[in-house]
């Protein structure tokens, strides 16, 4: 069995879903208008990812190869529905602001990709750690994106005003175009360091 710390580090750094693999882009861009939304989305996706990875891994010897993708989707959709209920019951404000993108976790390519590439080939414990690593990598990326956009666009960090009132806000950054620009700049910064190394 692979080393759990290595699996988690792999998800956060070496194969970061957002910055390295560039998958799961829709929620990444859509819900990161504030740090709290970004982290909330990341944690919801992490929960789905961990549970679906564990179950896909447990069922990997039972599911026939030819119908594996529909089976994975049903497993994922089940956990998404459960998470949706949990969020609706305990954090209704977050549930409202994430809105449509909670049911859409089903089609987040990150989750299906991990089911196909990792969970269906490894044991449940390794699959769980892989899910935690990838999920945290996703959450951290969304959190950073949300922090930058919130700071530039609204002058707040985690809903607490940090920029003085007189300082002009660049509203564009909490709107749709800002998501594209912020992600582009973050990726370019990472590329710059990678090219140097």
């Amino acid at each position, binding site marked *: 069995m692979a080393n759990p710390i290595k699996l988690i580090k792999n998800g956060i750094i070496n194969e970061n879903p957002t910055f390295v693999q560039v998958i799961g882009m829709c929620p990444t861009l859509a819900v990161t208008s504030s740090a709290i939304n970004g982290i909330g989305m990341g944690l919801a996706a992490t929960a789905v990812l961990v549970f679906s990875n564990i179950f896909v891994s447990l069922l990997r010897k039972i599911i026939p190869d030819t119908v594996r993708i529909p089976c994975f*989707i049903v497993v994922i959709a089940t956990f998404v529905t459960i998470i949706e209920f949990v969020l609706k019951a305990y954090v209704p404000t977050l549930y409202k602001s994430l809105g449509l993108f909670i049911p859409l976790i089903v089609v987040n390519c990150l989750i299906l990709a991990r089911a196909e590439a990792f969970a269906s080939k490894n044991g449940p414990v390794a699959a769980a750690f892989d899910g935690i690593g990838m999920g945290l990598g996703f959450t951290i990326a969304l959190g950073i994106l949300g922090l930058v956009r919130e700071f530039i666009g609204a002058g707040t960090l985690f809903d607490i005003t940090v920029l003085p009132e007189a300082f002009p806000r660049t509203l564009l950054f909490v709107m749709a175009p800002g998501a594209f620009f912020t992600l582009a700049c973050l990726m370019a910064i990472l590329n710059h360091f990678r090219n140097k190394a």
Partner: protein
Amino acid sequence: MNLILLVLAGIFVNNYVLSQFLGICPFLGVSKKVDTAAGMGMAVIFVMSLAAAVAWLVYNFILVPLNIIYLYNIAFILVIASLVQFVEMFLKKAAPALYQALGVFLPLITTNCAVLGVAVLNMQKGYNFIESVLNALGGAAGFALAIVLFAGIRERIADNDTPKAFEGFPMALITAGLMSIAFLGFSGLIKL
């Protein structure tokens, strides 16, 4: 009149890709050439309208009467996945020319979140059958418009000098951001 506005709003004002962030993966993934982008756009228009119609029927004639609305997500994704498979088989037999043009894009559409998104949105907004299909049609046409324009721009800038760090994805994202600003100009044009 309202129905025409619904379609126009889907194409310009609430553009799925550029203002709602649905279907970003194919938007970034299959937009290196105008031809393939157009093929993807056509396939999405076709599947999305069909999927919205079938999802509406499933919701109103199966989920609501049986009182299992909470299973909508599982039901919709299964409907879409099997529909895509079915369309693929049908086109292969009945219209080989069309299959040649759209075939490779069809499997990709299952994971296009715009297709599931439009089904869920139609349900949340309580649209009737015709409104649902037209909403999907407008949204898909907006996707096709955005991806074709985007591919055209990417073809032009492919050979340009860009800063080393911005090569590839970052440049594509900047381009999409600029297009998104352009589409912001349409906001407020139609109020629904």
